[in-house]
C-alpha cells in the first residue's frame, strides 16, 4: 500500500473516531510521523482533491478520498485476516502494520481469494482498537478453546 493510501486510511480512521474533521496532530500520531510530514502529505492529498484541509479545524476527506480510504482499510483488513487465518500469526495486528507498506492492493486482492471475509468489510473495523472487530472476536474465541 502506498504512502498516500496509508494517510487516507489514517485520516478516515481518525475522522470516524472524532466524528468530524481529523486534526493533523492525530493523523501524525496515528502514523507515527512528525506533524510537519503529515501537513506536507495532507497538502498533496488536498491538491489531488482527496481531502479538504482547514487550518484550526482539521482534515475532511472528499467523497473520492473516502472511497480510496475505505479500499485501503479493506486491504489492511485482508492482510490482518490472512495473517491470522492462513499463517496463524498470533501477533497479526503488529505484523499487519509492518507489512502494510509492502503489500500492494493487487496482492491483497489475491490473498482475499482464500480468506473468509465478511461482506460488510470494512464497516466492521473497530476504529478504537485499530483492528477488524470481527477478527478480534474470532481470535479471542480461538484462544478461549
Amino acid at each position, binding site marked *: 500500500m502506498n*504512502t498516500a493510501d*496509508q494517510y487516507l*486510511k*489514517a485520516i478516515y*480512521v481518525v475522522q470516524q473516531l472524532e466524528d468530524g474533521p481529523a486534526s493533523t496532530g492525530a493523523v501524525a500520531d*496515528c*502514523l*507515527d*510521523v512528525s506533524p510537519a510530514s503529515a501537513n506536507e502529505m495532507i497538502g498533496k492529498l488536498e491538491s489531488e482533491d482527496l481531502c479538504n484541509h482547514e487550518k484550526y479545524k482539521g482534515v475532511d476527506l472528499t467523497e473520492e478520498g473516502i472511497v480510496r480510504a475505505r479500499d485501503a482499510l479493506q486491504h489492511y483488513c485482508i492482510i490482518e485476516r*490472512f495473517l491470522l487465518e*492462513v*499463517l496463524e*500469526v498470533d501477533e497479526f495486528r503488529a*505484523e499487519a*502494520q*509492518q*507489512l*502494510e*507498506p*509492502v*503489500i*500492494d492492493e*493487487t*496482492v491483497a*486482492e*489475491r*490473498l482475499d*481469494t*482464500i*480468506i*473468509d471475509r465478511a461482506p460488510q468489510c470494512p464497516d466492521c473495523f473497530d476504529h478504537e482498537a*485499530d483492528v477488524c472487530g470481527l477478527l478480534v472476536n474470532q481470535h479471542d474465541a480461538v484462544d478461549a478453546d
Partner: protein
Amino acid sequence: MSLQSPLSSDHQLARLLQIGVVLEEVVEARAAKHASEFDDIDSEVRGLLEEASAESERHRERLETLVDELDAETIGFEQIQQLVEQQYGADEDFDGVLYDQLCNEETAYKFYDDLVAAIEGSDVSFSVDRDHLLGVLREIRAEEEAGVEEVTELMEREQL
C-alpha cells in the same frame, strides 16, 4: 499503523517469503482447478494453465528453500488447495479463466518487484546471502513478467 520500513529483520523477510509461497500455491491450485473445470478448453489455454501451475510449483520450491534457510516454516500446498476449493467461484467462460491467470501473473510480478525493492532499500544483513536472495527473486520476477506477456498475447489471439 506505521510508515516504517517493513524489512528490518530475518523474521519480516521470512514472513514476506511465506506470503510469496502462498501466492504461488494459490496460482498453482487455481490454474489446476481451471484446467480441470473445463473439458472443452482449447489446447493452447490448457497448455498455458498447466505450464503456469508447474512454474508456480518450481517458484514455491525455490522460495521454500529460502524460508528454510531463515529457519522458518511454510504453509503446506494441501492447506492452500483446500482454501482455494472452499472459496472458488467457477469462472463463466475462457475469458474469465485467462483474466484470472493474467491477474495471477501480474500480482506475482508486483509482489516480487516490491519485495526486491524493499530488500534493495534495506541495509539490514539477513542470515541468507543477499546476492543469492536477490538473484532468486529477480529470476522469479522475470519469469512472472514473461508470463504476463504470454497471457496477454493469448488473450489477444483469442479475441480475434
